[in-house]
């Protein structure tokens, strides 16, 4: 037979191989460009303040008692308050605070403690507006007052993502607290109890369908049922309930995988020792499946962190730390929804990218954590 067309074969082989390399290079390049873009735009904005500050700046009126302080040569130093001031773009902020400074015991309008901090901006001293003043002038103004106490209007600068970080954590906890037990119980039912038949098929069909529903539909559903009908308003509970349904398939199937890994002989010997099914589940099956369940949870966290469409219309977009489960004070933006909001409302891609950097780090940490757990688990099984 013909064995002559070696060249043609070599050429087509080379071409296909080229395509393979090209595709891989493209995939890797895409990832690199995306990460590069995010880092390039976002890294400059990421710093400690970005992480720990509130999103909105916050104004407060405080009363501070003066102390007997020693004068100094530094005109920006206010001995009676134990603080040093500094200028920055037309504003005057607190640069240093002594350890025994009375501003640490400042009281707000309701006479609650409101401790002043570094970088708080002073905009009013008693009834004098400080707009346009220099640090020295403000210091002189404060020292000029002869009263025993002084009233300041301070702005604590915002621009940080603390509220979103905390809201994200709240939603993660809430969602896992709801979906975790239900999902794990479902998996136990499916793997340990269910008999083949119509019920099982129905449940599996439902789970597979849930897994395929796009998150915008979950958003529609959550807004209609939880936000509107159940009157929870935009709230972390409405968001968490919506996400719980969305996460069920992920948690169930990952847990089921873990349960399937438990050898049948363990179940048999447990029964053989007179254990009931429940005891066997509690003492043998669940502990054995724990690493898998943990991985399921981490997968869940990953999806919660990345979710936007299902949360925007259920948990809302307010940058605050929620202090209840439902109602106006429970409305909260997660990092991802805030990122979206930011692009849409302000077009501020840089700050959005800074949030994206934080998200990326979170996702990487989660990926590594699930890898570690799996590896630890495998090693344990392997060596023994």
């Amino acid at each position, binding site marked *: 037979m013909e064995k002559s067309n070696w060249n043609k074969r070599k050429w087509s*082989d080379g071409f*296909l*191989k080229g395509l*393979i*390399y*090209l*595709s*891989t290079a*493209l*995939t*890797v390049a895409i*990832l690199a460009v*995306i990460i590069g*873009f*995010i880092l390039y735009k976002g890294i400059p904005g990421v710093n400690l303040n970005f992480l720990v500050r509130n999103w909105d700046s916050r104004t407060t009126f405080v009363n501070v008692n003066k102390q007997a302080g020693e004068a100094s040569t530094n005109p920006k130093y206010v001995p009676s308050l134990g603080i040093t001031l500094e200028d920055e773009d037309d504003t005057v902020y607190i640069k240093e605070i002594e350890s025994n400074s009375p501003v640490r015991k400042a009281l707000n309008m309701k006479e609650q403690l409101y401790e002043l901090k570094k970088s708080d901006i002073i905009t009013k001293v008693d009834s004098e507006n400080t707009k346009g003043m220099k640090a020295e002038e403000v210091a002189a103004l404060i020292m000029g007052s002869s009263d025993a106490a002084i009233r300041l209007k301070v702005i604590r600068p915002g621009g940080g993502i603390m509220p979103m970080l905390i809201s994200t954590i709240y939603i993660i906890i809430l969602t896992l607290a709801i979906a975790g037990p*239900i999902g794990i*119980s*479902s998996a*136990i039912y499916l793997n*340990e*109890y269910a008999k083949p038949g119509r019920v099982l098929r129905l*449940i599996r069909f*439902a789970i*597979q*369908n*849930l897994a*395929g*529903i*796009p998150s*915008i*539909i*979950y*958003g*529609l*559903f959550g807004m*209609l*049922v939880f936000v509107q009908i159940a009157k929870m308003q935009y709230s972390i509970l409405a968001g968490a309930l919506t996400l719980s349904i969305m996460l*069920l*398939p992920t948690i*169930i199937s990952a847990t089921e995988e873990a349960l399937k890994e438990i050898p049948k002989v363990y179940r048999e010997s447990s029964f053989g020792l*007179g254990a*009931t*099914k*429940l005891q066997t589940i509690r003492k043998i099956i669940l502990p054995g499946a724990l690493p898998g369940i943990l991985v399921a949870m981490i997968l869940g966290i*990953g999806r919660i962190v*990345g*979710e*936007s*469409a299902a949360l*925007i*219309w259920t948990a809302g977009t307010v940058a605050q730390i929620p202090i209840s489960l439902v109602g106006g004070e429970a409305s909260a933006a997660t990092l991802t929804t805030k*990122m*979206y909001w930011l*692009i849409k409302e302000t077009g501020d*891609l840089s700050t959005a*990218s800074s949030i*994206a950097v934080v998200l*990326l780090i979170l*996702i990487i940490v989660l*990926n590594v954590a699930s890898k570690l757990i799996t590896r630890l688990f495998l090693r344990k099984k392997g060596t023994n």
Partner: protein
Amino acid sequence: MKKIAYKDNKISKRSEFPEKLFHGIFLVCALASVLSVIAIILFVFSKGLKPFFGDDAYSFLKFITGMKWDPGNDIYGVFYMIAGSVLATLGAIVLGVPIGLLTAVFIAEIAPKKLVAIIKPAIELLAGIPSVIYGAFGLGVIVPAINKISPTGQGESLLAVICVLTIMILPTIISLSESSIRAVPKSYREASLGLGASKTQTIFKAVIPAARSGILTATVLGIGRAIGETMAVMMIAGNNIGGLPKSIFSKIRPLTTNIAMEMGYASGKHQDMLFATGVILFVFIMVINITLIKLTSRLGSQGSSS
């Protein structure tokens, strides 16, 4: 030998009740998924179908074939959105499946272990990146790039959507294809090589055909993901209020973004119409899901027989 008390009577009494109770609890939890699906269908459909019944019913035909969405003037047409969604998904599949498959081939068949150890986590990372970030990337990189070449002078377009969706489905396609390629028995490779096939020929003529149902599953999942994607797409689609896309540079308004864009504020009939859009989307997804379930069960039975 001393007898331990537990032998005598405690057991059956002890075991009965909690056993039954927990069996019940587990069952109820398992049914939660079923209830959720039913509730979702019930609520979304009942609200979404409302505008087509009753006194001032909107013609469903007008809705489904309509070319313009202008709630202010009581015009609700979704056909041009369906077209946009389908075209965008199609484009993403046409680009994403070959690229993803070939990358999977590289990882499974060609790359040395050390390289795999780098590329695989990278692809997992790609899968974990929130879609909003892809949207930001689309807005910051892809749209400006298309701006430069588009005859319409604008970057927000079908093409931009296709690019972003392609990127978003890549991880799904790659990881599923890769595992199905790895699952192809070694004997097929040996047989092919033994017949004088080169490695590349073996991959394309023996391995990929043997992995085809896994690849098909990956494709269907990719379709589901692409058609359901919302936030990333909304930022870059253009979201025009009417008209079929004429070229790859035309704007589109996918079904998902139609919902997302107006959901926050719509009320009354307008809101119902957004749910109706959701119903259309849901029907698409259901078809895809059922295809997928059929495929995976076929795949499962194939796996056990060979």
